C-alpha cells in the first residue's frame, strides 16, 4: 500500500470575498512527482503556500507527513524543502553563506558538495544578486534539499531557464525521486509536467478540474489524434478532400494538420490521395494529444460551462 505524504481534504482558502481555492482534495504518495497545474490565479501558489505553513486554510484540512502545517510549523520545516518562486535570499548573501545559514537552522552540517554537484562550486563566494537566473534557481533547489527532507515543494522550478539548465534540474529531480523523496511541482509548463509528473492535478478558478496521471489524462480527452502531413506540391492544401475519421483540419506552414478520431482510417486515405494526385510524401507525423492539448480542452470546456469545471 502506498504511503500518503500529503493529504488535502476539502481545502478552501478565501481572501475577503475572493475564493482562491474552493473545496480542493487530493493525495500525494511517497516517491511521487506530483504536478499542480493551472493558469494564473488558479490557486496553485495558495495551495503550495498553505502546505508550506505560510497561509492558513479557511476551511478543510491539510496534512503533510502527519503534520498539520498550520498548527505544527516547527515540525513541518524539518520535513519539507521549499524552492520558492521568488528569490527568497538577500542580494548580498553568497551561496556558501546561504548554505551555512539554512543548514544551521535545520541542525545539519552544510552541504557544500551539493553546491558543486549543481554547478555552483565556483560561484559559492559570489553574491546572490550577481548570479544568473539559472544559478539562482539551482541555488534555491540546493538549499531546499540540503537537509534531506522527505518532501520537496517546487514552485515554477524551471521558469526562465535555458534548455541545458532545465535538463540539469530535471535530472536532479529524477535523482531525488529515485532516492525516495516526494516532489510537488507547481508549474505552468505542461511539457515539464507531462515529462516529470506521475500524477497531475489541474486547477481552474480554485477548483480541481482533473486529477490523474498525464497518460490517463491525455487518454480521457476527446481522443483526437493529430496527423501532420507535408508533400512536395502540397496537393492536400490545394485540392482539399474529405477523409475518414477527420473532425477538424487546418493548414499551417507547409503542413496540413488533421484531427482524427480514427488514425488507422485517416492515414491510408491521406497517402492514397497524395499518390493519386502524383504528389510525393515529404513528412508524416501522427501524435497523440499532449497534456497541453488536454489542458486547453479542459479550460475551454470550463469556460463554456460558465466557470463550472
Amino acid at each position, binding site marked *: 500500500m502506498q504511503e500518503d505524504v500529503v493529504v488535502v481534504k476539502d481545502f478552501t482558502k478565501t481572501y475577503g470575498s475572493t475564493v482562491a481555492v474552493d473545496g480542493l482534495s487530493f493525495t500525494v504518495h511517497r516517491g511521487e512527482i506530483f504536478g499542480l497545474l493551472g493558469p494564473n490565479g488558479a490557486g496553485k501558489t495558495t495551495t503550495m503556500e498553505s502546505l*508550506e*505553513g*505560510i*497561509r*492558513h486554510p479557511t476551511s478543510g484540512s491539510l496534512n503533510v507527513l502527519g503534520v498539520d502545517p498550520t498548527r505544527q*510549523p*516547527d515540525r513541518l*520545516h*524539518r520535513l*519539507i524543502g*521549499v524552492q*520558492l518562486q*521568488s*528569490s*527568497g*535570499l*538577500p542580494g*548580498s*548573501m553568497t551561496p556558501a*553563506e546561504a548554505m*551555512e*545559514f*539554512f543548514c*544551521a*537552522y*535545520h*541542525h545539519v552540517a552544510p552541504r557544500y558538495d551539493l553546491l558543486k554537484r549543481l554547478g555552483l562550486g565556483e560561484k559559492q563566494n559570489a553574491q546572490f544578486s550577481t548570479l544568473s537566473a539559472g544559478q539562482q534557481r539551482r541555488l534555491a533547489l540546493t*538549499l531546499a534539499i540540503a537537509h534531506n527532507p522527505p518532501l520537496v515543494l517546487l514552485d515554477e522550478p524551471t521558469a526562465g531557464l535555458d534548455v541545458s539548465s532545465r535538463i540539469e534540474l530535471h535530472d536532479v529531480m529524477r535523482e531525488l525521486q529515485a532516492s525516495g523523496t516526494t516532489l510537488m511541482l507547481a508549474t505552468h509548463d505542461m511539457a515539464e509536467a507531462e515529462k516529470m509528473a506521475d500524477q497531475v492535478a489541474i486547477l481552474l478558478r480554485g477548483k480541481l478540474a482533473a486529477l490523474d496521471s498525464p497518460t490517463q489524462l491525455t487518454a480521457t480527452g476527446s481522443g483526437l489524434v493529430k496527423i501532420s502531413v507535408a508533400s512536395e506540391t502540397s496537393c492536400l492544401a490545394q485540392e482539399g478532400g474529405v477523409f475518414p475519421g477527420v473532425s477538424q483540419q487546418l493548414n499551417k506552414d507547409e503542413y496540413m494538420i488533421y484531427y482524427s478520431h480514427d488514425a488507422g482510417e485517416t492515414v491510408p486515405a491521406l497517402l492514397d490521395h497524395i499518390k493519386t494526385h502524383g504528389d510525393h510524401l515529404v513528412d508524416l507525423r501522427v501524435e497523440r494529444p499532449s497534456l497541453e492539448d488536454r489542458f486547453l480542452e479542459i479550460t475551454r470546456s470550463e469556460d463554456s460551462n460558465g466557470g463550472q469545471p
Partner: protein
Amino acid sequence: MIAFFHHFMYDFRIGLREKSLLLMNYLFPLGFYVLMGLLMTGINPTFAPTMTPAMILVAIMAGTLLGLPYPVVESREAGIFRSFKINGVPALSIVTIPILSSCVHITLVSIIITLTAGPFFKAGVPVNWGYFLLILLLTALTFASLGILIGVVSPNSRLIVLFSQAIFLPSMILGGLMIPSDMLPPALYRVSLLLPTTYAMNAWKGLAFGMQSTFDPLWGVLILLASGIIAFTLSIYLFTWDSKNKSRGHNPLLALLSLLPFVIGAIFLSTL
C-alpha cells in the same frame, strides 16, 4: 545557538559589505565627526566638552534609525522573511540579531570617536567609564529597537524616511547634540524632552562626563530603558513575515506606545 551565531556573523558582515549599511554604520558618522571636530570646536567652544557623546549619538542614530529599517522592509517585500520562516528561522532572531549586530558596529565607531576626540579636538573624555559604557549600550539598544520597530510597521521605504526623520532631524537640532538642552527656550526645551537623545545626553553628562545635568540623569536611564523594552516587545508583536498575508493584522499604531516614556518624561521633567 549555532544557528543564532551563524545568523549574527552573517548580519554583522552584511553591515560592512552592503554599501548603504557601511555608509550609515561607519562612513557617515565618522565623516560627520571629523567635520564637526574641525568646524564646531572652532566656532563654538562650548561644543568640545560634549562632543564625544554628541558624535556617538549621531553614530547611534545613523546606524539604527537610518540603517536598520530599510533591510526589514526590503526583506519582507522580497519574500526573504517567507523563505526564513519556511526554513525555521524564528521571528525573535530576525528582530534581535540586527539589533545586536548594529550595537557592535556602534561600539566600534564609539571606540574610534572616544579614543580620538580628546587628542585631536580637545573633546571631553569620560570620567566614569562604567556609566559611559552602560549608557552607550542602553542608548544603542533603545535606538536599535526603535529602528527595527520602524521597519516592522513601515509598509514601504517612503514611510521609513518619514518615520526615521521624524526622530532624527529634531534630535540633531534640539536633542542636546549641537546646543545644550538647558540653553533652549522653555517651549523648545519641553519639545526636546520628547526626544530620546535629550535623555541620553543628560545621562552621559551627569553620570559619565562629570558635568552638570539638567535633570536627574537616572530618570533619563529609566526612560530610555522603558522605551527600549516597549519598542523591542512591539517589534516582535507587530512583526509580519509577508506583506501579502495580513492574517496577524495587529494595528501598527501600537508602535507609538514606544514613545510614551518620552511623553511622560516631557510632562513631568519640564516642570522640575
